[in-house]
């Protein structure tokens, strides 16, 4: 499976496309989608830099713990590189 990553848990104000329910959560990169303009700059009509975008897969168990409906179900979301921290792969 893909590289393990964690979504940064920071909570800055402003226009951000990393959903709060994924922040601080660990997932695996499902695929790389290429580089796209940073929405955090586009939203304010600023010149936008390109950021790599990844589809990241999270298990319901990781997101919701004991409250998960079915722990092995997954959520996949697109997360920009500056919101991801790489983690060592699990043994």
């Amino acid at each position, binding site marked *: 499976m893909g590289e393990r990553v964690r979504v940064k848990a920071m909570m800055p104000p402003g226009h951000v*496309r990393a959903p709060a*329910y994924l922040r601080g959560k660990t997932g695996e990169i499902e695929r790389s*989608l290429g580089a796209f303009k940073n929405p955090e700059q586009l939203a304010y009509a600023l010149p936008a830099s390109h950021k790599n975008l990844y589809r990241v897969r999270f298990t319901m168990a990781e997101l919701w713990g004991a409250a998960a409906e079915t722990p092995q179900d997954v959520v*996949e979301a697109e997360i920009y590189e500056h919101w991801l921290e790489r983690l060592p792969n699990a043994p």
Partner: protein
Amino acid sequence: MPHDHPHDHLSPSGHPFRTDNDTPLSYFQTMEIAVRELLIEKGVLTPAEIATQIEVMDGRSPANGAAVVARAWSDPAFKARLLEDAGAASREMGFDIGPLNLIAVENTAETHNLVVCTLCSCYPRNLLGLPPDWYKTRAYRSRAVKEPRSVLREFGLDLPESTQLRVHDSTADMRYIVLPARPEGTSDMDESELAKLVTRDAMIGAGLPRAPGG
């Protein structure tokens, strides 16, 4: 080119179009007229561009996606191309989907896919047309990533525990279309017959295709 009554018949979904011309003018309708007039006067847009864009959007409907799905069910090479690059495969069929970045996700015996946008209401509108109202509700956007099976049961779909559910949250530049599994008993059906089985909800993952003859 008179355009206040572009349709005096029923809409593609079979509802009468809402009459909006004889209801009291609202603040936001006033804003819409004023903004549109200013844009035209300043040379940003022409009335013809606006009329054409409305026609283009009216021409986009779940039938377009259904045709893509039916082709994938009928043509394994097309299906492979669809799963590789759904935007290119849709364009290959002649659909003008603009700059849409489309990913097709396949339902199988082991996997069911569901599409949501928790942050706003992103939807593959350039292929399927505008999203249904429920897709934009707080209820759907909130619950689809935490209790999707419960949401699906409300749509009449009870997934077995043995099926893995994959929920796709459209948080950035990609849009998703579900490629449903081809229903049983359809081996003698051609593409146009198959397309009639493909519902909008099936391409969002909130439903399954119709059964043949059902």
